[in-house]
């Protein structure tokens, strides 16, 4: 293949066949994909319901500490299925390449997709590639759509009740902070890495809770604060957060302080929020901590009805204040 991707690779002709045959197929080789049909024919499990999710990935830069756009594209969709109670099985992969992206970068990203898919135990069964003119895509855009089998039914924000406990599976704000620093090398130097990881095994640990697990969600864009607001909006319930209980890596705290960011609003790509019945909270924490992705799991809040529809935190000197959703993007500030 050439050193850079050109429009010819998207034309559907010989070069496209080269792209698929030399770069994509060897990475993802499986019997379903190998058929190279226009559609993938999937085995069905009798009586099971399916969980489906789709997500597009446009992150810049596409390589960052702890991951890349490829890893993210697998984890993002796999995790959406997992927190919905599904066991992820199959992924479609649609890639839009910008003319001029180095082929070696594409190889790296594809390898990352393959490695992550293997780790997440999903198969890439169908896909598509297009190439657009220079300037029309930030190097590479990816869409993945996933199908899984429902294993843990009944999960929904509507199941949340007063008295429930809110858990987080680990440290907060890693991914968002990492990407902000990666966008601008002059900003700060740190060891902060994205927490991007496939989370099916983590969500599986909570299976024994049955309906005592009310809902799970992965707090991506907008962070923990925004996701928790999604749970309470329009309901008579409140989530009272204990800010001191929220685990934050020292470096993430430090970088956030310097730049004027708030980890509560920074994206996470390897964490879940879970709301559980109070009598099962300790057990849930113990279960989460049995896998590496859940080692820093902590209880961070309680569901009450004190301020319907809102998320609140206690201030250090009595009284409480509201935690709002994120409005606009966080930007580094001097003030």
């Amino acid at each position, binding site marked *: 293949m050439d050193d850079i991707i050109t429009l010819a690779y998207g034309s559907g002709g010989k070069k496209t066949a080269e792209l698929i045959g030399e770069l994509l197929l060897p990475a993802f080789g499986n019997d379903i994909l190998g058929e190279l049909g226009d559609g993938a024919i999937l085995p069905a499990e009798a009586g099971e319901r399916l969980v489906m999710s789709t997500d597009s990935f446009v992150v810049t830069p596409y390589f960052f500490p702890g991951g890349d756009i490829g890893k993210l594209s697998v984890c993002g969709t796999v995790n959406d299925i997992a927190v919905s109670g599904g066991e992820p099985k199959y992924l479609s992969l649609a890639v839009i390449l910008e003319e001029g992206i180095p082929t070696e970068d594409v190889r790296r990203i594809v390898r990352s997709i393959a490695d992550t898919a293997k780790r997440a135990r999903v198969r890439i069964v169908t896909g598509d590639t297009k190439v657009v003119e220079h300037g029309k895509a930030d190097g590479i855009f990816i869409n993945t759509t996933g199908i899984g089998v429902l294993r843990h039914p009944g999960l929904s924000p509507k199941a949340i009740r007063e008295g429930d406990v809110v858990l987080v599976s680990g440290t907060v704000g890693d991914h968002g902070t990492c990407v902000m620093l990666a966008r601008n090398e002059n900003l*700060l130097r740190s060891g902060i890495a994205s927490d991007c990881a496939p989370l099916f095994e983590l969500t599986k640990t909570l299976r024994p809770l049955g309906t005592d697990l009310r809902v799970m969600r992965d707090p991506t864009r907008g962070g923990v604060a925004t996701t928790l607001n999604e749970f309470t909006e329009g309901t008579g319930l409140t989530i009272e957060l204990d800010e001191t209980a929220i685990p934050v890596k020292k*470096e993430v705290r*430090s970088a956030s302080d310097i730049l004027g960011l708030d980890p509560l609003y920074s994206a996470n790509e390897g964490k879940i929020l879970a709301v559980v019945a109070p009598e099962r909270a300790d057990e849930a924490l113990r279960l989460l901590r049995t896998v590496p992705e859940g080692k820093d799991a902590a209880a961070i809040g309680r569901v009450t009805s004190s301020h319907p529809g809102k998320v609140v935190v206690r201030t250090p000197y009595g009284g409480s204040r509201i935690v709002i959703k994120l409005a606009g993007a966080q930007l580094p*500030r001097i*003030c």
Partner: protein
Amino acid sequence: MCLAVPFRLTKVDGVNAVGEKDGVTRDIRVDFLRDPKVGDYVVCHAGFAIERLDAAQAQADLDAWNELEEALATL
């Protein structure tokens, strides 16, 4: 308008220095410090150290705050 954080100087070379805070580092300028040294704690705003932090005073402040916390807890 005063968002500034304490950094510890890990390297000093004329007006250029490297500051570190809990594992995060950044190039900062020390034009406004008299005789900056490695190990100094400085208040850094928008990439410039605006003053050296008096460690003894900082410790005294922390001690006083502990008393304050205890007093407020009784409220």
